[in-house]
């Protein structure tokens, strides 16, 4: 018995550093001086670890931000005049709008992506055919916004930040996450920090890499991703075991198409991605891999058979 007890505490420092032994228990095992030294040592080791972390993710993020900027700052030099007039009009209109309803609306068109800065410096990147609206006046005390479609949020630390959708609500303190919602499709992916999802009276806590989604009437499912940011922000839409119906919806939003599915079974499961740059490649990468024939007609109508 005594021997067993001894064994358990034999290498207590190793266990303490892993958190298996609490600080106050360590205090009983060593002198007060040593106890303080060990606490200090652990602090130092933690800092050392943080500073030795690989920098690859930082580089990827920097590259993404640069790529994003490039896309948004073309044609800067010309049309200065028109731009300034347009800006003035926009401000006037914005002011009028502000006074009228106190709400700010942002929407994206087919194939468009847009990043908006919220009053506290948080960023929201919207995918095509999405909308965000919020009240800037109460933002300081109440960080709430409404979302339709899909958006990627990078939230500044601070008070509670809530995203309302017709399907469910997401609340966080300061983190990065992606929300996608259409009819019968709801998905939240957490990239950093912690995200709380309330859906249909159920609550899910997501940690980095974790994701929860609900498709049609199926049970909510939780799964893992290995990405550090959503693929669509780099010009690609990715799907993991998603019914064809929702892939087609995304294609339509991205390229402003009308896809006539005819006799094709829309419940078939698709895993893969399509590019935002080239329609032909995108169509091929979805339908050819599913062995579905498609026909391009006029006015952006695609017919499947």
């Amino acid at each position, binding site marked *: 018995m005594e021997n067993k007890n001894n064994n358990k505490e034999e*290498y207590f*420092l190793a266990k303490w550093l892993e958190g298996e032994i609490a600080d106050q228990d360590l205090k009983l095992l060593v002198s007060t001086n040593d106890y303080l030294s060990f606490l200090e040592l652990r602090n130092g080791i933690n800092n050392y670890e943080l*500073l030795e972390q690989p920098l690859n993710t930082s580089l990827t993020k920097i590259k993404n931000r640069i790529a994003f900027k490039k896309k948004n700052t073309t044609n800067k030099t010309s049309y200065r005049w028109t731009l300034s007039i347009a800006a003035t009009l926009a401000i006037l209109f914005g002011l009028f709008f502000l006074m009228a309803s106190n709400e700010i609306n942002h929407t994206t068109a087919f194939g468009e992506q847009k990043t908006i800065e919220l009053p506290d410096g948080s960023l929201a990147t919207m995918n095509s055919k999405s909308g965000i609206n919020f009240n800037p006046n109460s933002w300081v005390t109440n960080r709430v916004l409404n979302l339709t479609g899909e958006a990627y949020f990078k939230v500044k630390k601070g008070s509670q930040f809530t995203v309302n959708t017709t399907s469910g609500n997401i609340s966080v303190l300061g983190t990065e996450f992606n929300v996608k919602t259409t009819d019968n499709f709801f998905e939240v992916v957490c990239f950093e920090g912690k995200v709380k999802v309330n859906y249909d009276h159920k609550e899910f806590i997501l940690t980095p890499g974790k994701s929860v989604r609900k498709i049609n009437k199926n049970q909510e499912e939780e799964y893992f991703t290995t990405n550090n940011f959503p693929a669509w922000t780099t010009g690609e839409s990715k799907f993991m075991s998603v019914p064809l119906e929702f892939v087609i919806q995304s294609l339509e939003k991205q390229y402003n198409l009308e896809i006539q599915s005819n006799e094709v079974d829309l419940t078939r499961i698709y895993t893969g991605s399509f590019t935002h740059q080239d329609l032909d490649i995108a169509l091929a990468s979805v339908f050819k891999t599913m062995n579905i024939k498609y026909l391009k007609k006029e006015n952006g109508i695609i017919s499947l058979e």
Partner: protein
Amino acid sequence: MIRDLNNICNDLVFEKLFHKYAKDLRRFLFFKTKDVDLAEDILQDAFIKLWDNCATVNFDKSKSFLFTVANNLFLNIKKHEKVVAEHQKTTIKSSNQESPEFVMLEKEFLEKIEKAIADLPEKQKEVFLLSRIEKKKYREIAEILGISVKAVEKRMHLALIKMKDKIGNI
């Protein structure tokens, strides 16, 4: 050819500069901010500023450019915090975390830790790094090294005692 190697606007050159300076810059920012996330944000902003100005910044001056920009970004944030604090009329005095003494103490301490790790016997160092840097569980380390979990814990335990003694002594 040589021109190309010194052209920061070239992706490869930019990446090379990142790998060369990012780690030092992160340390520098961490000592100033004491906040990993903030240090990371400023780090990214500084490199993006470098990219924005890649055509005008001299290759040999890129290091000082990065550190100056980072420092200014840090000071701007501090200034902004002060304004916010005054605005909210909170009279909490900001701690002098960025004072030179503090930065130096913190830096010295980290250097001591680094030295203590470097001076560990090979077997203890191996276990320590696998655990703290590679984030492996003791069980996984035991598997990798082909020893018992108990032996892993022993090495870790001894390593911590050794490091504590070393740091206490200096």
